[in-house]
């Protein structure tokens, strides 16, 4: 890289584009000439000429000379290069442009690591968790139905699974807790939702209700409103247990509504009274009790 030719010192102060209009006729030195790219020529030499102001406000011309080399040819053998120009044959001759036999995937495929690099987990956590808890409950003893081993592994993880006769699973079927059989269908590997498994506490519905308690719906939010903003807005009325702003998954923008849960119902009522119709970020908020979902 060659740096050279400091040219005439010009106005040292920073210029605002708005001021340029008035005194344009006199000198345009403060305007930088556009970037120039020359080449690459037959030797692969490419020149880039740029201008910029240095710290003292002097204009500096920077000439960057690089050599462009094609590396692809370097590793190809002579025969491979020759094969590149072979004429098409067989069905490829009649191939029309529109046939689109070869496409680049629109999907970005990554080499999916089985776990985060560096960590060395023994078991895949997500799958093991619910089952492990089931065992801890004490009600179910871990017995493998394939090999009959107790407390070592589950049937689905049995290392001797393939050696056992497939018929065995049918013989054993009556021994399975009846709830699981009903849900599981025939195969021993059929997926059973955690809530349907034997011994699972069916608390999913309770969880939903807790979320709906003292819940206030806020609509007509501006797109810039984030959960922190809502929290700040509602905090003065009392303890807030949850703040949620609906975000469009595709665009990442706020969908213009959210929910705030209060610990106390009175606080929620006061917030509704105060903030319904309140001007926030150029929009008039609508705050009301959230109606529970009807489904």
């Amino acid at each position, binding site marked *: 890289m060659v740096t050279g030719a400091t040219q005439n010192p010009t106005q040292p102060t920073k210029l605002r584009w708005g001021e340029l209009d008035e005194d344009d006729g006199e000198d345009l030195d403060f305007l930088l000439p556009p970037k120039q790219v020359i080449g690459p020529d037959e030797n692969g030499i490419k020149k880039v000429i740029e201008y910029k102001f240095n710290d003292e406000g002097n204009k500096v011309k920077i000439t960057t000379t690089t050599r462009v080399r094609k590396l692809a040819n370097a590793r190809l053998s002579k025969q491979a290069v020759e094969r590149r120009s072979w004429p098409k044959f067989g069905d490829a001759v009649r191939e029309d442009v529109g046939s689109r036999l070869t496409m*680049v995937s629109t999907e970005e495929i990554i*080499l999916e690591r089985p776990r985060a690099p560096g960590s060395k987990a023994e078991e895949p956590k997500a799958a093991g968790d619910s089952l492990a808890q089931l065992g801890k409950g004490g009600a179910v003893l871990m017995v493998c139905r394939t090999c009959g081993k107790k407390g070592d592994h589950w049937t689905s993880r049995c290392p001797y699974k393939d050696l056992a006769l497939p018929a065995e699973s049918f013989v054993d079927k009556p021994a399975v807790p009846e709830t699981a059989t009903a849900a599981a269908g025939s195969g021993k590997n059929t997926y059973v939702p955690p809530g349907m498994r034997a011994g699972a506490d069916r608390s999913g519905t309770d969880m939903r209700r807790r979320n709906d308690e003292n819940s206030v719906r806020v609509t007509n939010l501006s797109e810039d409103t984030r959960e922190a903003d809502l929290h700040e807005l509602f905090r003065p009325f009392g303890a807030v247990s949850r703040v949620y702003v609906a975000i469009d998954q595709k665009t990442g923008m706020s969908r213009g509504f959210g929910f705030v849960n209060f610990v106390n119902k009175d606080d929620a009522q006061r917030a509704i009274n105060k903030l319904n119709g309140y001007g926030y970020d150029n929009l008039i908020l609508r705050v009301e009790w959230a109606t529970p979902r009807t489904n």
Partner: protein
Amino acid sequence: MRPILMKGHERPLTFLKYNRDGDLLFSCAKDHTPTVWFADNGERLGTYRGHNGAVWSCDVSRDSMRLITGSADQTVKLWNVQTGAQLYTFNFGSPARSVDFSVGDKLAVITTDPFMELTSAIHVKRIARDPTEQTEESELVIKGPQGRINRAVWGPLNRTIISAGEDAIIRIWDSETGKLLREADKESGHKKTITSLTKSADGSHFLTGSLDKSAKLWDTRTLTLIKTYVTERPVNAVAMSPLLDHVVLGGGQDASAVTTTDHRAGKFEAKFFDKILQEEIGGVKGHFGPINALAFNPDGKSFSSGGEDGYVRLHHFDPDYFNIKI
């Protein structure tokens, strides 16, 4: 990485092979027409028309001038790689399953399936330099293993032939006399059909994939088990990176079960394992059916996979692949 999708075949892929320079990729499928592609951009160069049945495997000579293909139409054909012209046809009484050129391309080993009253067999044919002098005679015919012989390849210096197939036993034969030299230990060996076998770049060891949901690495000379890679689905295809200590396993559940399962549950990934630590590195998804064929570019910078879905997917690795740490 953004894989290149090649949709030239109308039926499931069966085999993939790069030439030695790694600029051409040959694909075989059940649709009778082996195809050659440019391995860098996936452009189709040509097709080899003439077979009348599924093509099970192929091999290309070191100078990339001759192609040999084995087909279920009971023939093995020699082709001119450049023009797609048929040079010679070997006729057998049963479907040809596997073909492999020897070092020097003077011999080829061909396996045939059991069919009607014929048992499976390994044939060694002499390949003439001039196709007009090519003859039908076999130098050697080996019989013995039960069931299909899914793969037979040449051992070091063409002295031996390594075979594996439905009886799940790997055998090493003398390529001169046809004598059985070694047989894999039953205890440590595969428990179900061996579907694929691939040699390392230097030929010192080879990898087998089996329906028993594992792949095993063997020493070529002593036939001792070196490593085992365990996965959760049948292994249809295996490949070894010539550059890094990685092995790739491809598979998925049986084709007959595909329609009844979600593609996410089918585990149609190409699974990467560390060759030495036997630990899983990662998976490359994309196929809508089991992977039937895998091949690594000889430069180790790309690999391709062929699936039951009829697609060849050509993957050029991202730079960060080359410094993956476990």
